[in-house]
């Protein structure tokens, strides 16, 4: 009986831990934009991505650490560079 309980508890633990990864976090931090985690339904176009990153950056230190804000800023710069590359004139 003890062993059966152990198996059930173990299985429950594994199921719930996997489920947490499958769902978008409910916390205020946007883990997808921040660290490419929990990216569910990521079909943002390039303008929307820039708007969302900008929105997250504006949340400031109330939500993100200075290091995380720096990372988000880098991602915004990277996205702006992608747009520039897409729209580069000439060859």
């Amino acid at each position, binding site marked *: 009986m003890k062993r059966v309980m152990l198996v059930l508890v173990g299985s429950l633990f594994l199921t719930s831990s996997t489920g947490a990864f499958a769902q978008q976090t409910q916390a205020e931090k946007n883990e997808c934009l921040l660290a*490419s985690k929990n990216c569910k339904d990521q079909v943002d176009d390039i303008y929307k991505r820039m708007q969302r990153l900008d929105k997250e950056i504006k949340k400031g230190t109330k939500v993100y650490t200075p290091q995380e804000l720096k990372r988000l800023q880098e991602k915004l710069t990277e996205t702006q560079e*992608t747009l520039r590359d897409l*729209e580069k004139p000439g060859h």
Partner: protein
Amino acid sequence: MSFQKKLLAFAAVSALSAATAVPAMALENEFHGMFKFMGFQTNALQGGDAKVLASDDAHSGFFAEQRARIMYTAKANDNLKLVTHFELDTRFGGIKVTDGKGYKGTYNGNDSGNLDADALTLETKNVYLDFNCPITGANFKVGSQPWADAYQSLFLLADMTGVIATKKVDNFTGSLGWFRFDDNTAAIASTDTTNTGAGQYTADLIVVDGKYAINKDITVGATYYNIQNDTALTAATTTAPTVPVPNYELLHMIGLNADMKFGDAVVKPFAAYQFGEKNSTTDISAYMFGATGKVKVGPGSVNFAGYYLSGDNNNTGDVKSFQTVAASTTYFNASNMWLLQRPGQAINTSTSLLGNDNTAKGLGTAGVFAGYEGTMDKVFYNANVGYMTTSKKNAAGDKSIGTEINAQVGYKVYDNLSASVAGAYAFLGNYFDATAPDADNPYLVNVQLSYAF
């Protein structure tokens, strides 16, 4: 197997399943792209890279073209991704099979604008690996990738094969790169006994770039670029080209640049000096400087930009002309011109009065440009004026290339789609008097649809 062992095996398999499922979910498949349609009514553009016409009784005509770019990024995580970027260019109606003027992206009439479309038009722009090294903390980009100089692309902006490493330490960002943009080494013929190895006739660019953020508003930078061009070196058995690009053997370019914000104004000054060897008997000593800026005024911004490239009209002694790699890989988008400079919004037809050659075949050029841009709800607009001259007089003793005025108004149909119309007119200067004394002033009207996602 005892029950306890089965239990352990089950737990191990379950844990493994959970562990492998997690990283797979972090993979991001990013698709981005753009589509532009452009229609031109003009007496000056010929379509493609052929330069803006300056000729007598230039006929006006209408042509249309389109470009799509598709970018796919396979992002394993924040530290590793593969970037691929492709391009599809078409002129409406296709191009003449024998058109030798180099219409962008097409060759020998292979243009899907022809009747019943079906043609090979897919071009590869970039394929490169972008990763952060866990040991050094540096970012590496390896493969065919875009690279721009720190001088508003007056020297070089191109897609090239190479490797560049970038490392940030506090407020300092340093880059070290190597690009091979030409390799004309011929395959060894079976009868060749000289044992010519691969990579003998090549052109390489070395990049050293440093930027330091003094504070959040001011960043200063210093660069060193080096080009070693061995494509023209001859040997008894070589088939190396007789006209190499670039047209010099060794070039060093050192420069300084800055990005400064003062309240509502942003100013970006730059200056650089070049020295090297044109060939075994002639040296290079040239320079350039300029600045771009933007100041918020009223509902929009005032833009200004200017530059000077040194020139030479004396064929003896050292060359004082500013050197680029190729005219087709230079830009000055901050000018916001349509005819004097290649337009920053251009697609397949991307040219200027000098055929994008801001060195004016060695005379050098200088330009001053100013304009105003703004938005009103979904409407955007801009108007600009610019003047260009050669730095040294041409053979006829003339310098003035011309003055351009242009304006554009557009409407954002959706967040990602804009429609616009633009007009540009250039008053030709006396630079063209010797070659086209009765040339008509060039003009164009542009209608555009632009979508990016």
